C-alpha cells in the first residue's frame, strides 16, 4: 500500500467516525416522519391506525359499517346498471379465531396476479392467486384474523388495483388506493 492509499484510508476513517448525538438525531427524524405521516392521512387516519381503533372501537365499527353499506349499495347499483356481476370474496369459517376468505379477481390478459395486504406485509410475492380455468378469473384462499383488513391486487408485479367488489379505503397512500374487508365470525363484509 503506497502513501496515497494510506492517506485515503486515514481520511475515510476520520470521515466515518460517528457523529455525536447521531442516534438522538435519528429518533428526532423518525418522530418528524411519524407526524408527517399522520398529517398526510389527515382526519381519516385514526380509524386505520391500530391505536385509533383501540381508542374509538364503537365509532370505528360504526364508520366501517357505514362505509361498507354505502359502498356495497353504490357498487351493486353501479354494476347492476351495467349488467356486470363482479366476483366477491367468499368465506368459510376455520378454527382459532380466523376465517378463510377466498379472494376472486378478474384480470383479462394478466400473466400473474397476487394479493397484498396488511396481513402479508404488503409483500407482492407472498400470496399469488391461481388462475381459474376460464382464464380471466384469479382466486386465492387466505386465512385472516377477525377484524378490519386493507388489501389490493398486484397485476404482473406492477399494477396495483383495488378490489372492484369491495369498498375503498378512505386514505390513498402515495396515490394508491386499497380496498377494505371486515372479517368476523361466519362473515366477511
Amino acid at each position, binding site marked *: 500500500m503506497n502513501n496515497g492509499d494510506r492517506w485515503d484510508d486515514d481520511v475515510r476513517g476520520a470521515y466515518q467516525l460517528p457523529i455525536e448525538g447521531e442516534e438522538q438525531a435519528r429518533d428526532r427524524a423518525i418522530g418528524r416522519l411519524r407526524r408527517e405521516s399522520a398529517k398526510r392521512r389527515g382526519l381519516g387516519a385514526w380509524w386505520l391506525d391500530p391505536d385509533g381503533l383501540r381508542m374509538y372501537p364503537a365509532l370505528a365499527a360504526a364508520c366501517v359499517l357505514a362505509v361498507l353499506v354505502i359502498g356495497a349499495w353504490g357498487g351493486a347499483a353501479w354494476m347492476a346498471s351495467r349488467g356486470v356481476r363482479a366476483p366477491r370474496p367468499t368465506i368459510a369459517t376455520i378454527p382459532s379465531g380466523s376465517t378463510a376468505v377466498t379472494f376472486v379477481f378478474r384480470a383479462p390478459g394478466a400473466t400473474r396476479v397476487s394479493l397484498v395486504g396488511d396481513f402479508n406485509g404488503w409483500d407482492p410475492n407472498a400470496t399469488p392467486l391461481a388462475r381459474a380455468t376460464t382464464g380471466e378469473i384469479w382466486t386465492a384462499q387466505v386465512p385472516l384474523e377477525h377484524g378490519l383488513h*386493507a388489501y389490493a391486487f398486484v397485476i404482473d408485479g406492477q399494477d396495483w388495483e383495488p378490489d372492484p367488489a369491495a369498498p375503498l379505503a378512505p386514505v390513498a397512500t402515495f396515490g394508491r388506493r386499497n380496498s377494505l374487508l371486515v372479517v368476523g365470525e361466519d362473515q366477511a363484509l
Partner: protein
Amino acid sequence: MTDAELVTRAVAGDVGAFEDLVARHHAACLRFAAHVLGDRIEAEDVVQETLLRAYRSLGTYQERQQFRPWLFRILVNRCRTAAGRAHAHRLRTAVELTPGDATVRDATDGFELRSRLSRAMAGLDAMHREAFVLKLGEGLEYEEIARITGASVPALKMRVKRARDQVRARWEELEHDEQR
C-alpha cells in the same frame, strides 16, 4: 430485508418499513451533510428535510433505482440549497468544527482526526467538497457520483483530484503542527 423490499412495503403504506430505511441510512446522510455544510445542527435539519422529501416522493421511486443513491441525490440538492442559504445569512465553514464548538464535539477517540479533516477541508468550495466527500468519504464510484450530482465523470475526476491535493497538503501541515 433488502432496501428494495422495504421500499415496496413503504410504498404500499407501511410507515414502519420507511422508518427501517431511515434507521439504516440516517447516519450516512448526517455524516455527509455535516461534512459538506460544516455545521452539525444545520446538517440535522437538512437530513430531516431530505427524509421528508423522500417520503413524499416514494410514489415516483422506480424499482430499478437503488434506494441509497436516490436518497443521496435528494440530500445533495438539499445541501446545495442550505449552503446557498448559509451564504446569504452567515458564512460558516468547516473550520468551525473545532474543539471549541460543543455541538460537534465527539465523544470518541477520533476527535483529533475528525477535527483535522474538518480543518483540512475548510478551504474547499461547495462543489469540490461535495465531490471529495462522496468519493473519499463515502467511497462511491464515479458513475454513481455522476448520477447523484448531475456532473460528468471527467469533471468529477478533476474536482476530486484538485480537492484531494488541497486537502492532503493542508492535512500534512496540520499533522506536522500537532506533532511539534
